[in-house]
């Protein structure tokens, strides 16, 4: 099938280029005009690429993975996702597959920054006739949904994007196959809840109730900042908004920011920025000249393996959180971590904590559904996934509304939603400190808070 597509494209390009090349001058012989016959012959096989044909019993079930490998953004997270999916696939295949059929991953590069790049990547997979799509975040989710929706196969995505989820709920008939993790706005409300809980627990006594927010320039970070501000307002005076400091991606010198932070002297500081390396740089510079007594929360970035590696000792004591992370308390979590670390030669410090688990879970969600449904019957699979939650390493995956609910912000029962984990770097590794039932250790005030 792939070969057919390559030859199809090559033939058409060759024809077109020959013809247009001939436009360049007039004295070339006119024999090239005979070429147009070629592409129509080559075109025939690609029509066989209808999705229904992929589901011949006994053949492998194909999961499509659009993984960014060449662009300027998101490659590290996407690689993590790929690894997680490979782990799940190998485990399932080692256990005899799904109904005797093995699972296969169809991986393609995707340019997550342009709509046409996203379209091309997804169309490559739908064109290959995959039975499901598992995708880490793409920057522009609607472009992906535009292709995946009409295709109909289950599309499990790591997009924490409230607006994409609004689009889904606006047209469930078209986007009913879109299953996502909780939106980014929960980072905001979850953070404020976390602060309150921490204060109540007595582990931390804030020096004042001000919260400074360092806001990154993506819509993602702006949404989080807005949600945080709303949550602070809703806290009824328990917390108070300090200053919102805007930064751009690519910030290398944090000293102006640090100077502002020192001047404000807020009780809690939220660094609402997503690039791990830049957060590591922040940690280094902050640790060298800290604001005494302030709790510092970094957003999801430290989950990337490079954070600890770069920040080194400076990372000690920083708090961060994610809505789809890996815990380390339950048996499944530990087993997953051990398997992943064994397979990819990493350890607790250098393991990604978000996407490996999420994509691992998603492959398992699919395998679970395919155990009782026909992979070719997309509607049935979608219905099954929505109706049958399973327990994964990120938490309880309940896609009743297409979106997994979040504990503890949305629901109170940890067994009914995925967990919003909070970690603190303790002893050089990420240690879960909240929510309480998953916590490995309690919050420990870092050096500058003692």
């Amino acid at each position: 099938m792939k070969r057919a597509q390559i030859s199809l494209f090559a033939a058409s390009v060759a024809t077109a280029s020959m013809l247009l090349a001939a436009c360049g001058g007039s004295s070339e012989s006119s024999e090239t005009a005979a070429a147009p016959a070629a592409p129509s012959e080559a075109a025939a096989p690609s029509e066989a690429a209808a999705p229904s044909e992929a589901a011949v019993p006994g053949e492998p079930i194909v999961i499509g993975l659009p993984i960014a490998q060449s662009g300027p953004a998101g490659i590290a997270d996407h690689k993590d996702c790929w690894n997680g999916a490979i782990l799940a696939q190998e485990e399932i295949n080692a256990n005899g597959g799904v109904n005797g059929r093995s699972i296969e991953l169809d991986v393609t590069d995707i340019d997550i920054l342009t709509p046409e790049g996203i379209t091309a990547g997804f169309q490559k997979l739908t064109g290959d006739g995959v039975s499901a799509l598992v995708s880490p975040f793409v920057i522009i989710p609607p472009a992906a949904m535009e292709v995946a929706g009409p295709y109909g196969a289950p599309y499990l995505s790591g997009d924490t994007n409230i607006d994409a989820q609004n689009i889904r709920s606006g047209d469930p008939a078209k986007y009913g196959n879109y299953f996502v993790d909780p939106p980014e706005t929960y980072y905001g409300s979850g953070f404020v809840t976390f602060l309150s809980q921490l204060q109540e627990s007595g582990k931390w006594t804030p020096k004042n109730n001000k919260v400074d927010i360092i806001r990154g320039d993506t819509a993602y970070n702006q949404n989080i900042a807005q949600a945080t501000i709303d949550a602070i307002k809703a806290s009824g005076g328990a917390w108070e908004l300090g200053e919102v400091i805007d930064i751009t991606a690519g910030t290398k010198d944090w000293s102006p920011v640090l100077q502002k932070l020192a001047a404000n002297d807020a009780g809690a500081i939220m660094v609402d920025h997503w690039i791990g390396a830049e957060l590591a740089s922040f940690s280094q510079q902050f640790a060298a000249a800290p604001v005494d007594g302030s709790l510092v929360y970094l957003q999801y970035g430290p989950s990337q393996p490079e954070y600890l590696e770069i920040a080194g000792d400076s990372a000690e004591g920083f708090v961060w959180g994610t809505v789809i992370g890996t815990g380390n308390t339950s048996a499944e979590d530990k087993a997953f971590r051990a398997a992943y670390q064994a397979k990819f030669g990493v350890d607790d410090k250098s393991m990604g904590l978000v996407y490996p688990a999420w994509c691992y879970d998603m492959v398992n969600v699919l395998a679970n559904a395919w155990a009782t449904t026909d992979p070719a019957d997309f509607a049935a699979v979608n219905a099954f996934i929505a109706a049958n939650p399973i327990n994964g390493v990120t938490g309880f995956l309940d896609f009743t509304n297409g979106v997994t609910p979040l504990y503890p912000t949305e629901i109170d029962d940890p067994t009914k939603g995925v967990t919003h984990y909070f970690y603190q770097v303790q002893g050089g590794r990420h240690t879960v400190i909240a929510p309480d039932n998953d916590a490995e250790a309690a919050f420990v005030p870092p050096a500058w808070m003692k």
Partner: protein
Amino acid sequence: MSKQPLIGRRSWRPSWPVNTEKVFKRRRYLGTKRSVLRLSGSYNPKTLRRELVLTDKKPTFWLIGLLLMLVLPIAVSNERFFALFGIICIYAAINVMWTLIIGTAGLQSFATLATVGVGAYGAAYLSITYGVPWPLMLIIGLFLGALMGFLISLPARRLDGLYYALLTLGLSEFCRNFVTQSDQLGGKFNGALFGVDRIVPSDLMTSWLGQVLLYISAFALLLVALAVFRWVNGGRLGLLLRASATNREDEAFSSAIGINFQRARTWVFMIASAALGAIGAFYAAYIGGTSLQVFSLDLLLLMLAMIVIGGLGRAEGAVIGTIIVVGITQWFTEWGPWRIVLVGVLALLSVLYTRNGIFGLKAQLKEIRQRRQALHRAGLTSRYAEFLPQQAPDIHDKAMIVGRTFERKLRDRLRGWITPVIIEEHRRKPLGQHSDHLERILNYFRQGPIPDKYAVYCEEPFTSYRVVALSGVPGVPPRVVDDKVYPSLDEAYHAVFLRRVNDLRSS
């Protein structure tokens, strides 16, 4: 097709015999003097039969190529193919307009994608916020593009090429930062705007008809872009700008003949920018949104690679380059980073080994062939004929070389015969029977061309004669060559002879 007789080294042209009874009627494009597909009637000098000759194959190839581009995706009817060729059409349209700016206007502007982006974001924002329908979006994009073009063209007069290029590069970065940080435009999807009114209604979108309509709209965009290119580049503006191309000498010439090339450049820039703005709006309506990436350096580099691979400054180069690069990056996604490497290598190869991309190759090969011929010919001419060696490669007519070679040999021989004895013989008796050598010399002189031929002018019969040189142009009187007055006709004859001998010697 009739049997093609080969005459001389005339380049081969396709021709068809026509009905000799009927008068050949030349079909022209409406409102122009161009004949359709450059078909013209002519006589075959060998068979003396009338033929219909395709004098220029370029329009035909354009026609076939574009037809193929239109039909191919529809014939294949693959969702991915539609999307691929649709985006190729849009990128090609952008590149064609960029070619207009870089090639025709000679402005090294990198703000192309910024203009596209401004058109796209402006139109998309208005469409999302106020529900502007897509035809209106195109007009809005047109105006935004023109405005942008006007603003960008302002510093072009003041700044040197490279400074201008870098400044426009900075402008893209500026736009990117602006959109990123703007709450309105930065929007919901990390800088991307979505939910724009689309060209094809969304319920039709998934059907075959919708796909075809969408593709045809993109193809029409490319056609319009090519038409604008043709209209500007081939029209008066293009001519004036080619006359004042880029170097200072050309600019000096064009200001000497009164060309306001600055204004012409601004005009071309404005036209192309307006078109780019409209393309941006079209892109937003085509995709249903737009993303920040239009302002990024990465995409700009890819676009540059496209026009470099195809051949800078040509519309067909822009189109083919786009097909190749977009084809590689959007179709072979499973190759991962290697496909970007491939694009880079292609760009590198085209810059290292071709003179001007794929479309420069033909001219390049031709030049290599010509150089070899010219060296050979120069070897011949330097020995026998009278040329400045620089001229040799420009002479294509072999007969001329042979003729000149003969002339040169003849003159060498005659020069050898001119001795004081001969001159004395002529002085004594300018007219009448002469020795063989003198007779031959005189015959040679008589055969000379009329312009600048010496003649005797009789001021006053029998007493006053002067030597004049004929102008060679009817109605233009001869000019007097010197002040000398000769008392007798014979002396005047001899003076003419001496002048000719002198000229022969110095030739």
